[in-house]
């Protein structure tokens, strides 16, 4: 085996090439310093960001951009907190004006406690955004019919949930994630639900192009160390997928020769 067989030349979304298959959120950290250190340790090149009102009472408060520079990371503005198509479209138009880029993460959420993707509203928002020249990476249900329709509409990446946002439950419906990936011609990312490194590796072993997570790092006891774990997990999972796992069997199949044993 030579080194070239171990290379992974990354993935492409909307014409942009990324070496890291880990996309991380920037929310829920204790401080902006911890955010920056964790993201650096994760090796991620793309980060999700939220769009919110400026705090008028403290206009000089430290800003995310000072710690996670958009010159160094690809910002992926999201629509977190949006429960209607109108709010999502409005939020991303503001994001485009603030940042000057078209690549966005669309998520339109149903009510608590699951914040499950509202697919009717997601279709409506995706349609409006695509008509307005956005490049839409879309958070969606683990529903292969919905996923295919979003792709056919022109979404540039399909991002089914592994489990509800922030739940840390892992990939609870792996067969449908695999099915969505098998039929897709655009990148598929597991987005939401990952709780620890083995679950990120598992998502990659299903054949996903990348994994998007936030709370798994931010809510770990040691976020920087978990960020490093996620970096390695995603690499390991990708290699395992490309390597092709051995078949499963409930019976034993000895690894050592069965002949030549001493008598």
């Amino acid at each position, binding site marked *: 085996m030579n080194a070239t067989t171990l290379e992974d030349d990354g993935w492409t979304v909307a014409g942009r090439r990324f070496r890291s298959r880990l996309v991380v*959120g*920037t*929310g*829920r*950290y204790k401080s*902006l310093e911890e*955010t920056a250190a964790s993201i650096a340790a994760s090796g991620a090149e793309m980060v*999700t*960001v*939220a*769009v*919110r*009102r*400026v705090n*008028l009472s403290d*206009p*000089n408060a430290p*800003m*995310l*951009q000072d710690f996670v520079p958009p010159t160094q990371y690809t*910002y992926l*503005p*999201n629509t*977190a907190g949006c429960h209607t198509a109108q709010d999502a479209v*409005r939020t991303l*138009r*503001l*994001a485009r*004006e*603030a*940042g000057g880029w078209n690549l966005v993460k669309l998520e339109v959420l149903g009510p608590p406690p699951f914040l499950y993707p509202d697919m009717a509203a997601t279709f409506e928002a995706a349609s409006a955004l695509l008509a307005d020249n956005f490049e839409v990476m879309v958070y969606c249900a683990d529903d292969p019919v919905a996923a295919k329709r979003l792709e056919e509409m022109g979404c540039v990446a399909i991002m089914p949930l592994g489990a509800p*946002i*922030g739940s840390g439950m892992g990939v609870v419906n792996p067969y449908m994630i695999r099915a969505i990936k098998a039929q897709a011609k655009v990148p598929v990312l597991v987005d*939401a639900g990952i709780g620890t490194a083995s679950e990120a590796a598992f998502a990659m072993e299903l054949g996903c192009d990348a994994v998007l*997570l*936030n*709370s798994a790092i*931010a809510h770990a006891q040691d976020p920087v160390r978990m960020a490093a774990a996620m970096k390695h997990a995603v690499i390991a999972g990708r290699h395992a997928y490309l390597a092709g796992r051995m078949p499963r069997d409930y019976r034993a199949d000895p690894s050592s020769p069965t002949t030549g044993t001493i008598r």
Partner: protein
Amino acid sequence: MTDTSLAGTRTAPTLRITVNGEALSLAAGVSVAGLLDHLGLPRRKIAVERNLEIVPRSLYDETLLSDGDQIEIVHFIGGG
């Protein structure tokens, strides 16, 4: 609200607008650029919406505020 820094004269007519949900009184004739200066916001890092319409950065100087305007000023923060 008394704000002579923007107003020019004390008798100038005032505008009542809403910025990020907060009521604000300003002198008539203030532009979006003037509002941002008044609030002390660096315009490089934000986006402005006026009555549900984006105000492009290139139009901050020439876009004058009107009484009753609903203004949203946003920026990027941490999010997943």
